[in-house]
C-alpha cells in the first residue's frame, strides 16, 4: 500500500510484517523511531506473538537477541554508532554462533567528538565481524531489505545488518510502498532453526574450540558468505516476483555500460551521485556509477568485471581508516588485480557534512581531468585545519582541537 511515511516507520512496519517473535530495544539516535514504532505495535496488540524487551544497554540488547535466537525465536534489534561499539563483543559472538538475527544500523558517526549525524564509521567498524552487511540507497529499499534480510539470515543461519543512513533516510518522509501481510508471508516462510535449545534434544552451544578446529570453523564462516553471493541476487529476483519491484542484490550500476569513469559508493549518497552523473552525461562525459548494496559479502567478481574496462575509479566513502585513508577503496584494491586504472579515494560526509551536488560535480570534473589527489577529503575546511596546526606548533598545550575549531568558526576567524 502506498503511503506517505517516515523511513524509520516504514522499516518498523516491514519488520512487523516479518512476524518477529522477540525484539530488544535500547535507545540511540537515529534508530529510536524504528524500535519505538515496533514497541507501539506490540503494546497495541497489532503485532501479536512478540515479546518487546526494553534492556539496559546495547550489549544486553544483542545478548538477549542471542538467547532468543538460539532458542528458536525470530529476533530483531536495531542500533547505531556508540551502541554498535558497545555491543561489539556480542556482534562477533552472534555471528560465530550462526544466529540469524536481523539488526538495523541507523548509520551515524562515532565520537569523540560526539556527533549524532550520518556517516558509515559505525557499521564499517564491524565489517569483519561475520555479519552480512546490506546498505540501503532509498527508504523503499531500506524497508524491502529487511524482508529479504530475514530470509537471507535464516537460509544461511547467519546474522544480517541492514545499514540505513541516519536522518537522511531514517527521518525522511516520503511516499513508500508497504507490502501486504500476504505478500510477506508468501516470501518469508516461518523460522525453522538449524540448531536450537530444546529440552527434548539437548545440545551444547558455544563450546570452546582449540587450535585443532578453529581455522576450519572460521573458514566455514567465510564459505557461508561466499554462498551468500549467490543467494543475495536470487532472493532479490524472487522479491521482484512477489513484490513487483527491484530491491537489493549485490550491487546496482547506473549508466555504467560504456563508462570510462566509475563512481562507487554505499547508501543514500548514490541518489546525489546519479543526479550529477546525469548532468555530466548530458555534456558527453562517459561516467557511470555502482552502488554497493552488499558490502559483506563483498561482490568482488561483479566489481572486477565492471571495472575491467574502466579508466578511472572514484570511491566516495563516508568513513575514514585513520592512518591509511579509505575502507571501501581498500576493499576494492583486492578486486583491481590485473586492472590498470586511476583510483581515487574520496572521504566525504563525515559526521553528517552535506555531500552536495555542486561539490560532487566539481570533484568528478577534476577526476575526469585526472587532477585529483589519490586521497581527497571532500569540502574539508583547510583554513580551519591549518589554523589548528599552527596553534599546535606554537604551543604544546594547545587544547582540544574540536573545541578550538568551533571557537574559530564561531568567532568568524575563518
Amino acid at each position, binding site marked *: 500500500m502506498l503511503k506517505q511515511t517516515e523511513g524509520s516507520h516504514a522499516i518498523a512496519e516491514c519488520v512487523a510484517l516479518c512476524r518477529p*517473535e*522477540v525484539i*530488544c530495544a535500547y535507545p540511540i539516535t537515529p534508530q529510536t523511531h524504528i524500535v519505538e514504532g515496533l514497541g507501539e505495535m506490540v503494546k497495541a496488540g497489532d503485532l501479536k*506473538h*512478540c*515479546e518487546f*524487551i*526494553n*534492556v*539496559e*544497554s546495547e*550489549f*544486553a540488547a544483542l*545478548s*538477549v*537477541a*542471542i*538467547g*532468543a*535466537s*538460539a*532458542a*528458536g*525465536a525470530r*529476533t530483531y534489534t536495531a542500533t547505531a554508532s556508540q551502541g554498535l561499539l558497545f555491543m561489539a*563483543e*556480542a556482534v562477533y*559472538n552472534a555471528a560465530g*554462533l550462526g544466529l540469524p538475527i536481523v539488526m538495523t544500523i541507523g548509520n551515524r558517526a562515532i565520537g569523540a567528538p560526539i556527533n549524532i549525524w550520518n556517516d558509515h564509521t559505525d557499521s564499517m567498524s564491524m565489517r569483519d565481524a561475520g555479519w552480512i552487511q546490506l546498505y540501503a540507497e532509498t527508504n523503499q529499499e531500506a524497508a524491502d531489505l529487511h524482508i529479504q534480510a530475514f530470509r537471507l539470515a535464516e537460509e544461511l543461519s547467519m546474522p544480517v545488518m541492514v545499514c540505513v543512513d541516519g536522518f537522511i533516510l531514517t527521518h525522511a518522509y516520503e511516499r513508500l510502498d508497504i507490502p501486504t501481510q500476504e505478500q510477506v508471508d508468501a516470501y518469508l516462510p516461518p523460522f525453522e532453526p538449524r540448531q536450537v*535449545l*530444546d*529440552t527434548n*534434544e*539437548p*545440545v*551444547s*552451544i*558455544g*563450546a*570452546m*574450540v*582449540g587450535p585443532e*578446529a578453529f581455522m576450519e570453523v572460521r573458514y566455514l564462516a567465510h564459505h557461508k558468505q561466499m554462498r551468500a553471493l549467490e543467494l543475495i541476487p536470487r532472493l532479490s529476483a524472487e522479491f521482484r516476483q512477489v513484490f513487483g519491484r527491484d530491491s537489493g542484490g549485490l550491487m546496482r550500476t547506473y549508466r555504467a555500460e560504456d563508462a570510462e569513469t566509475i563512481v562507487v559508493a554505499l547508501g543514500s549518497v548514490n541518489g546525489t551521485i546519479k543526479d550529477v552523473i546525469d548532468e555530466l552525461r548530458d555534456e558527453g562525459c562517459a561516467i557511470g556509477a555502482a552502488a554497493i548494496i552488499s558490502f559483506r559479502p563483498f561482490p568482488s567478481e561483479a566489481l572486477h568485471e565492471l571495472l575491467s574496462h574502466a579508466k578511472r575509479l572514484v570511491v566516495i566513502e563516508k568513513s575514514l581508516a585513520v592512518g591509511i585513508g579509505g575502507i571501501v577503496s581498500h576493499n576494492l584494491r583486492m578486486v583491481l588485480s590485473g586492472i590498470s586504472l586511476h583510483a581515487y579515494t574520496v572521504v566525504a560526509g563525515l559526521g553528517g557534512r552535506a555531500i552536495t551536488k555542486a561539490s560532487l560535480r566539481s570533484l568528478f570534473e577534476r577526476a575526469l581531468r585526472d587532477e585529483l589527489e589519490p586521497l581527497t577529503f571532500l569540502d574539508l575546511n583547510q583554513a580551519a585545519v591549518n589554523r589548528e596546526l599552527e596553534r599546535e606548533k606554537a604551543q604544546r598545550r594547545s587544547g582540544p582541537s574540536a573545541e578550538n575549531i568551533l571557537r574559530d568558526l564561531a568567532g568568524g576567524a575563518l
Partner: protein
Amino acid sequence: MTMQQIKFYQTGTFTVGNRLLDADQRSVQANMERTNSLNSGHRACQGCGEALGARYAIDAAMRASNNQVIACNATGCLEVFSTPYPETSWQIPWIHSLFGNAAAVATGVAAAMKVKGRKDVRIIAQGGDGGTTDIGFGCLSGMFERNDDVLYICYDNQAYMNTGVQRSSATPPAARTATTMAIGAEPGNAFGQGKNLPLIAMAHGIPYVATASVAYLRDLEAKVSRAMTVRGARYIHILVPCPLGWGAAPHDTIKLARLAVETGLFPLFEAEHGEVTSSTKIRRRVPVEDYLKPQKRFAHLFGKTPAVSTLAHIQETADRNIRKYGLLEKHD
C-alpha cells in the same frame, strides 16, 4: 554362612545418612534417578567446589521442573572444564555466549519460551563470581529489574579462577590472589572493598534470593527447589571452594565450605521481595582462624608473627554477620 563386612560412614557432622530416611525425604543426589545434568568426565580440578555446586543445583532444578531446564553459562571455569569441543558434560540444553552476558542471554531464551507458550521450560543462568559481580553485573541487574523469569546461580569461588586466580569484587579481605599479592604493608586484598551481591539482588525487590553452600546439600537443594516454584527473577549465591585458587587440599572442599558458614563469614539465608525470611543457624560456632588457616591464600596471616589485628578485623565481620542474620540459636 558367608559374612560380608559393611562399613557405615557418617557423611558430614550433622547430616543424617540418606539410607535411614524415607525415599521421598532423600536428597536429589542420593537418588539413583538423578539426572547427572553435569555428567562425569569433565576436566575440573580434583575437589572443585564449583563442579559440585553446579551438579547439585542443576540436578535439583531438573527434578523440580520435570527435567525442563535450559542453562545459559558465562565464561569461566565451569564453562571451560565442562565443554572443550567436541565433548560436553552437559546433559541439558546449554549455551555459552560471553563472559558478561549470561543473564541477558537467559532473558532472551525466556522470552522465546514465553512467546512459544512453553511455560513448562525453566531458564537458568549461571556464572562465577567474576562473571556475576563484576563484568556481568549490568546484564544481571537489568534482568533482576525487569523481573525476567530466570533463576541466576552464582558459583562464588571468590576470584577469577579460570584466568589464574585474580581478584574479583567477591574476593575477601586479606586474601592473596595473583593481583592482590601477599606483600607490602597490607598484604593480600584490601579491607573495605567488595560487593555483597545477595544484598544487592534483594535491593531489586525480586521475589527470591538465597545463599547456599556445597557443604549443606539438603539446604542447597531445598533452596533451588523453592526457587523453581517461583516465577520472575531469582538469585542463588553458592559458596564453592576452589582448591587451586585457595591453596587448599582437594579433600577439604566440603570442610572449608562448612567452616565458612560456621564462622559466620558466609551466612546462609533466604529472602523474599527484599526481606530476609530465614537464616540457617550455626550449631557449633568456630573462630575465623579455623577457616582461614588451612588455606594458603591466607598463609601470610599465620607466619612467625601472626597478623593479630587483621584476624580480629575478619572476626569482626563474622560477628557482625552473626548478629545481623541472627545466626546463633537462642537459648532462653
